[in-house]
């Protein structure tokens, strides 16, 4: 499935994704016919106004929400035909979700919190510990490994949660406004971490409304009212000037 040539290696593919919340008169169309491909070594930013469908797209890409129509293919697996156990395994091993809210377990130290998903996945203790330490280092918090959540600032707790989300060998990282609550210098730590992971062969989607953050991506996709805004921005005058209606 994977090829050595990182660029041609498709990690995630969304084909014709549409999503409708609710039914009848109150139905909301969040996405219509969205296609998106993420290769290994590629970070794709999704931008768009609030309500344009960014978060919906991300939860669909991660198999947390089933689209009304369309196909999600994660590392060659069609989610529509995968078993619940298969999807759960993908979420444990392949997908890393970075969200704004963090639920660290207060009774566990920072490193124990980060190790948790690996423990659940049956990793050997020593191996899990060293992977967790790597993840903490990637968010520049290795010095806080043995601190408990209530001994850490909000921003530090969020970075611990991010380390937990990406720990191990996950190849697809899905981040929804991950820097939201962080000051701009700390936010940069998180973006640099994402960038490094992607440069090392992962694929990522970064949802953000901040152009400065989107600029860390290789490609920027705009959503407007649930549709991808045409990326092939033409420079020809013809495309800018519609025929003028004569009175």
């Amino acid at each position, binding site marked *: 499935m994977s090829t050595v040539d990182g660029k041609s290696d498709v990690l995630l593919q969304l084909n014709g994704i549409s999503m409708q919340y609710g039914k009848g008169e109150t139905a909301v169309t969040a996405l219509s016919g969205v296609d998106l491909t993420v290769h290994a070594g590629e970070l794709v930013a999704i931008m768009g*106004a609030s309500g344009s469908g960014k978060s919906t797209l991300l939860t669909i890409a991660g198999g947390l929400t089933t689209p009304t129509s369309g196909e999600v293919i994660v590392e060659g697996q069609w989610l529509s035909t995968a078993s619940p156990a298969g999807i759960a395994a993908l979420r444990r091993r392949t997908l890393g979700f970075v969200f704004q809210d963090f639920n660290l377990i207060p009774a566990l130290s920072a490193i124990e919190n980060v190790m948790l998903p690996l423990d659940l996945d049956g990793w050997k203790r020593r191996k899990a510990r060293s992977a967790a330490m790597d993840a903490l280092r990637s968010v520049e918090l290795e010095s806080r490994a043995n601190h408990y959540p209530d001994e850490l600032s909000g921003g530090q707790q969020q970075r611990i949660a991010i380390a937990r989300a990406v720990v191990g060998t996950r190849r697809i990282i899905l981040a929804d406004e991950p820097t939201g609550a962080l000051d701009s210098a700390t936010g940069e730590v998180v973006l*640099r971490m994402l*960038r490094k992971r992607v440069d090392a062969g992962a694929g990522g989607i970064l949802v953000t*409304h*901040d*152009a*400065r953050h*989107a*600029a*860390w*991506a290789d490609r*920027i996709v*705009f959503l407007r009212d649930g549709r991808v*805004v*045409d*990326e092939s*921005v*033409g*420079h020809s005058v013809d*495309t*800018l*000037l*519609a*025929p*003028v*209606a004569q009175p």
Partner: protein
Amino acid sequence: MSVRQSLLAILDQGPCYGYQLRTEFDRRTGSTWPLNVGQIYNTLDRLARDGLVEKLEASDASPDATSQIYFRITDAGRSEVAGWLGSPVERTAATRDELAIKLAIAVTLPGVDIARVIQVQRAATLRNLQELTKTKNATGDPETSENLAWLLIVDSLIFQAEAEVRWLDHSEARLARAAATGHAAPLPLGTEIPKRGRPTKVVPA
């Protein structure tokens, strides 16, 4: 750009030749606004005229040097530098912004797809922002003073580009609201043809 004060501030560190000043300026600004030697000498001439620097022959400093001219700051120059560093940079209220003018004109023209004009600009500004971010990421942590000075400038360009994207987003939303309420009608040419020549004087009552 305050070339004048920047050069003066550098001269406050010690006398320099014209060419040397150029190198010092570039080194401190990451060559973002390269100055040519002509600009430097013009500025130095004006500074000398205003009594802020004095011209000296190199032979005054060392007997065997060729007769190259170098410049030394005066006391008046020093207090100008202190004044510059201690006061805010004044920005004139209505600096012509090419992009703002373009959008303002475009929105009044019938048949122009303004959303597309905005999208084309945003894509270009974002590409610029991506380049700047790459540059910044490649520069890494400021291990030298030159790197630090350079990063300050890159950051400034990044924040300017970000502001432009935010303004474009904002304009897009404003236009969408205006279109929804029917306030986005283009402006046809005025029917009254203005007289040639000077605008007519308004006679005070």
